[in-house]
Structures are given as structure tokens and as C-alpha cells.
């Protein structure tokens, strides 16, 4: 298992009910796997996982990326206002 830290931004903070979350995940978990895990365990985040911007250590992470140990991951929602 790997330890990781999730940081929630903007409206995702309200949905997650927290700014940050520490998790233990399997060593081979991908970003897609993490999205599925969050959607299953946090019903308030389920819809958001369909279009969330996720970074690993401040770099954009594609769904296929494997999450490294001690990753700091940030989750940003899309915003549309202008």
C-alpha cells in the first residue's frame, strides 16, 4: 500500500467536506482507479469525478497514470464563469 495526500480545490472542497484527505492505496492504483474509488466511497464526489482535473505533484495526470508513493494529488473542478 502507498500513502498519498489529496487536496480539494474550489467547489470540490464543499462536496468533499474537507480541504485535504490522507489515503492508503494499492501500489498499482491508477488515476482512473482513484476516481472510481472516490466515486464509490464519497457519493457527493461521484458526479464530479466525470470531469475533474487531477494533478500528481503539480503535474497534470492522465487517467492511465500510476500513482507513485507519497504523491500529493490536487483535484480541481472545471469552472465556466466569465
Amino acid at each position, binding site marked *: 500500500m502507498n500513502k498519498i495526500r489529496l487536496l480539494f*480545490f*474550489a*467547489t470540490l472542497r464543499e462536496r468533499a467536506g474537507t480541504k485535504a484527505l490522507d489515503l492508503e492505496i494499492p501500489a498499482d492504483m491508477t488515476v482512473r482507479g482513484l476516481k472510481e474509488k472516490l466515486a464509490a466511497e464519497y457519493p457527493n464526489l461521484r*458526479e*464530479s469525478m*466525470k*470531469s475533474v*482535473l487531477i*494533478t500528481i505533484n*503539480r*503535474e*497534470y495526470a*492522465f487517467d492511465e497514470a500510476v500513482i507513485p508513493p507519497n504523491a500529493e494529488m*490536487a483535484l*480541481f*473542478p*472545471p*469552472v*465556466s*464563469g*466569465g
Partner: protein
Amino acid sequence: MTLPELSHEEILRYSRHLLIPEVGLEGQRKLKASSVLVIGTGGLGSPVALYLAAAGVGRIGLVDYDVVDSSNLQRQVIHGTSTIGKLKVESARAKLLDLNPDIQVDVYNEPYTSENAMRIASDYDLIIDGTDNFPTRYLTNDVAVFLGKPNIYGSIFRFDGQVSVFYAKEGPCYRCLFPEPPPPGLVPSCAEGGVLGVLPGTIGTIQATEALKVLLGIGTPLIGKLLLYNALDMSFDFVTLKKNPNCRVCGPNADIKELIDYEEFCGVPGHDHGEEGSAGEGLDITAGELAERLKTNHLKLLDVREPHELEISALPGAVNIPLGQLAARLSELDSAEEMVVFCKGGTRSARALELLASAGFKKVKNLKGGINAWAREVDRSLPVY
């Protein structure tokens, strides 16, 4: 291409630019030869257009089809109280030409759509995304990719802002980051959720800065980087972006080769008026109809706005369950009871109606235009907000 000369008046006007070696006389002549298309003359478009005009960008195009409303003026500083009710593009053009009569301002008083976007944008060096909705953002992105032009992206909500320079020739595009739009109704617009008035000022001036850097060819533009700003924390976070190899418009196997129907793609309309919320045919009740019904019948009223909005205006006897809590609190409602759902403008209540319908509620209607329509048409003692 030979660059245009500057008159003595222009040399004096741009003196503070000419003193910076990175701009100088040649840079200022480059700006004079440049053209920028600003999509939207709202919160972001206001500072962008004002600063680009002041900086001496020779030709500025403005696309908008709205009229100035007093609720715009808390942030849309290119307009004024004297131009309420006037076309936004005309209001903006007059302000820009007052600021700088040496530039040319082209106006397009029409929605930016798949039909006209390529024609309008092809005439400009650079595109600024100052729109207020997802369909027009995807459209603006795809047009920029197809035309090979830089797209200076900015987006805001409440206290948060994002900026990037999407230039598919050199880096990722908007779709690389957000391949799929969010489910309809998940991300509130500024008309529904509000925005700190100064926020588009911060984000728009950063967009204008990036536009000038790209036009002048100086510094390091935000290509391949996304700036994430939060006004409450006063935090500026930068994220490194990558081109998405599976991007459907700029990837090696792109399958979107021409503009599509963006409203269908996003499942929402390409504007953010927030005042015309309708649940669709047969599912709406107008404020006038509701007033008539309430004279003779008892009708349950469900207010799905946030609690702090009730301080602005409220309907007596209405039950308040904010939209975000509705799914979890359905047991508080009786699906057999006749009910009218409302919010500020009818958008959130239309979403609520979908949710209620899927939960088996059959006798519910949406108050078209929300409590604001009620305030306009039935009870003028209530404010419109």
C-alpha cells in the same frame, strides 16, 4: 510584413511602453499591427478589452449579443450606468474608443456559434476566451485549434480563477485538460452561484498580460501551464500540463475535424442568463398562473435556493431545501402532493424537477423564471437579484 508607423501623438501616448526595451518602438508598432478577438464583453472581457485598447492593440473584435443590465456593473467595468439597456458591444466600443481613438474596434452583435465562429475568428491573430458557459468554451477552443491560433483562456467562479494559454501548435488545448464537459447542472454558473466582482479583474488582466506577451513575442507565456488562483487564500498555484495523446481535436488521432453542436455536446445552453430557467414543455408554470392558482387552491411551494438567498426575497409558506441537499431529503416531501418548485431564475428548480421526476414525483411544476419572475410580474414589493 512592414510594421505601421506611429504618429507623434501615438509616440507620446505609448511613451511608457517605448521606455521598456522589451517593448520599445518596434514592439509598439507590432501591437499596432496586431488584432485580437475578445469573445464576451462581460466580467473577463471588460478588463481584457480595456487594457488591450490602452496598450495600443491596433484592432480589437468584440463578440456579444447581450444588453447591459445593472446586475452586470458589479464587475463588468467596461459598461456603465449610462449604458444600461444598450447593446454590450456598442457600450464597450464607445468606452474603448474614448480610451484610445487610434485603434479600430469591430463589433459582432451575435451569439458566437458553430455557424459564424470560424468566419469571425479567422480575421484575428489571437483569441481571448471570456465566455461564461461550457459550450462556448469548447467552441472557442476548437476554433482556435482549427485555425492554429493561440487561445488565451480565463475562467472564474466565486473566489476561484483559472488562466492558461492554449496553443495546440506548441502545447495542450482546453480539451486535453477537460476531454468531457461536466454533467449538466453540476457546475453552477456565476448567475446561479455568484462571483466576487474584482475576481474577473484579476483574471482578465492576467489574460491581457498573456495576450500582450504572445503578440510581442516576449517572456514565457502560460503555454503548457495552468494558473489556479484563489482570492480568499490569495494563492497562485501553477500546474504543468501535457498534451493529451488521445485529444479528440489536437491529438495525433483526432476525430473531430470540424465544429460540432456544442450545446448538445455539453447538454446546456450556450449562454448564462440564469433568468429564463424552464423545465421544458408542460412542466412550467408562470408567475401569473401560479398567483391565480394560489387564490383558489393550496399548493406546496418548494424553494431550492441556498438559505442565505432567503434573506433577499422569499415566498411565504415555502419549504426550503437547497438543491444540493434535495436528493438526501426526499423523504421530507410527499410525492402525491401537488407542488411548485422555484429558485432565483428557474435553472436550479428545473434540475430539481428532473431529480423529483426520477424519484417518482408526478405532480410537480417549475416556476418559470423563478422568484425573480414572481417579483417582476406578481409582487413588486420583492426585489429582483
